[in-house]
């Protein structure tokens, strides 16, 4: 899809979309942006990209757990204090 928005405005738009997806936009700005997402294909695509990015990072990055041994070691340490 060809971008029709000038680069500086596109950065602002991408910033706002990130804020929306992160849950950091205030209500009026959120309402305005959601309206734009419904009516502008380019904005909709940027929104979909950002949602996919967040999903990818939260679901696919390897998560490590400490396991019960570390928790038990910590319990023993604080009991010994």
């Amino acid at each position, binding site marked *: 899809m060809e971008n029709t928005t000038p*680069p*500086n405005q*596109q*950065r602002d738009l*991408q*910033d706002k979309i*990130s*804020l929306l997806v*992160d*849950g*950091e936009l205030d209500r009026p700005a959120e309402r305005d942006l959601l309206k734009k997402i419904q009516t502008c294909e380019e904005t909709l*695509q*940027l929104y*979909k*990209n950002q*949602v*996919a*990015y*967040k*999903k*990818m*990072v*939260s679901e*696919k*990055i*390897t*998560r*490590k*757990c*400490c396991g019960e041994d*570390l*928790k038990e*070691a*910590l*319990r023993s*340490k*604080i*009991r010994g*204090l």
Partner: protein
Amino acid sequence: MIAVSSEPISNKEQLFENELLPHADALYNFAYHLTYNEADANDLVQETFMKAFRFINSFDSGTNAKAWLFKILKNGFINEYRKKKKEPNKVDYEDVIAYQDADEDSGGVVFDLREDIFDGMMGDEITVALNRLPIDFKTVILLCDIEGFTYEEIAKIIDIPIGTVRSRLHRARNMLKESLKEYAEKMGYK
């Protein structure tokens, strides 16, 4: 019945068990991605919990224990661990800040990848790309995109203004996407 003289300690232990220890896995995951080493992550998490327990009287039950623990861990990592290790592949903290501030002034670059490219990515590639990022950029992605902290909480955890959290996150995500672009091209995406 004899009164239990150790009751205050028991309360502390109860608080530790109920409000702090449930965050051990999240803290370990954060520590692992900061150090990229299981033993170091283990040490960092233990140090964090011991510091938290030492200062548990200053912790208000019901407040944001997770953010408090993450702040202690991040301070421990920055102030002690990295000074000891002096890892050659890690970018110096001050250099990163200078770089990041310069980036803010430049107006930044818009960089994006299509949603279908993210869907096709493998977890290992994304993890490697994340771990290649300079530590301060990796940190904001871990705190926001993996742990779900708000910008305000992130600002408090890493002691920077909210505006800087926002711009650093923007830059960090662009860096991660740029790094993944090469992999996406190898996979045949254009």
